[in-house]
């Protein structure tokens, strides 16, 4: 697990595949190292690159017999991103996910308005922000902008 903590996510390189909760388990099956990974979004294009990088990292540490297994249950959740990784995301310019605001198919403004959680600008910390688009540069993010410092930024969607 320590080796894999050095494998960066290909699209958000400040956090590792372990930070994001993509690596679920590492165990030996006889002489083969089995790494169990879970996809973030089911169509995330980074998934195959992540698998490749994990395999390469393990071979670099001298283990030649590696097997990757895909596990979809329980489904990946942003709840698995720890506080340190969230801080790394913020410093990188991505507002971290706000727990408990995942979509459930009802049309309620979870991130706007009185009493609701607000996305804080990762640059100036202002809560005076607005959603520009429900999707951003990757499936896991949405496009937001800060109404105070006027910078656009990515928000890591809660799922």
């Amino acid at each position, binding site marked *: 697990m320590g080796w894999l903590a050095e494998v960066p996510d290909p699209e958000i390189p400040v956090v590792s595949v372990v930070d994001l909760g993509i690596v679920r388990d590492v165990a030996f099956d006889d002489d083969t190292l089995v790494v169990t990974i879970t*996809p973030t*979004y*089911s*169509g*995330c*294009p980074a998934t195959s690159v992540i698998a490749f990088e994990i395999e390469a990292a393990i071979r670099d540490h001298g283990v030649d017999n590696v097997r990757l297994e895909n596990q*979809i*249950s*329980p*489904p*990946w959740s942003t709840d698995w991103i720890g506080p340190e990784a969230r801080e790394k995301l913020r410093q990188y310019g991505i507002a971290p996910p706000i727990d408990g605001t*995942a*979509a*459930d*198919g*009802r*049309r309620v403004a979870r991130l706007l308005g009185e009493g609701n959680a607000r996305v804080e600008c990762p640059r100036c910390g202002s809560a005076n922000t607005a959603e*520009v*688009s*429900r*999707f*951003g*540069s*990757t*499936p896991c993010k949405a*496009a937001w902008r800060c109404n105070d410092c006027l910078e656009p930024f990515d928000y890591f*969607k809660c*799922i």
Partner: protein
Amino acid sequence: MSALCEFALRMGDNTLILGHRVSEWCGHAPVLEEDIALANTALDLIGQTQMWLGLAGEVEGNGRTADHLAYKRDAWDFRNVLLVERPNGDFGQTLMRQFLFDAWHHPMLKWLSENSAEKRVAEIAEKAVREAAYHLERSADLVIRLGDGTDESHRRMQDALAYHWTYTGEMFEADAVDGELADAGVAPDPAAMKPGWDALVGDVLAEATLAVPENDFAHKGGRRGQHAEHLGHILASMQFLPRAYPDARW
């Protein structure tokens, strides 16, 4: 073919064909943000397809993979509803099709994730339902914004609704396969999803100031492999490369 295999094909072909249709917008959407949103929605749908068609191949037991099923079947072997192969038309038509589908897809996945007696179906649904929830919220919001928008956007959304309406009934028709699945507790009776869909669609269309069409005719056949001409054209572009260059790899 077992009922479970048939069910996985129906679910996977819906997401495959809709995902491919939506991906056709890549680089053509009215604004950059919507272009990205459409491409990401398509990605989610294609990702879900890999799970459903993967399950179909596994259940079938003849060694066919998700790629095999996507690229090497002909139109009459596809089991998607006719709605998802409808042409993209303008942005309003694309969004209305998405909303009418999402309003069925999300409750369906929710039922499967909570109730399906088949563990593999429940697991796939549990993964996909979170993405479908996000799709539904987005498409419903945009239907309202455009329906209750300018005169032109309102007209286009009302036209889009009329264009797709007679293709929605197929989502709730039941055949012998559905009966077998419902008896086994694998999937709900499709007709049981109708009242919830009517209520949700009715609420959103009312807020969008759009009139619900009165025509209750339903085009059917997609789930049995009888498709409109559109599917053949989709397959021609989607399957060209793997058929012309078998086993091509990145």
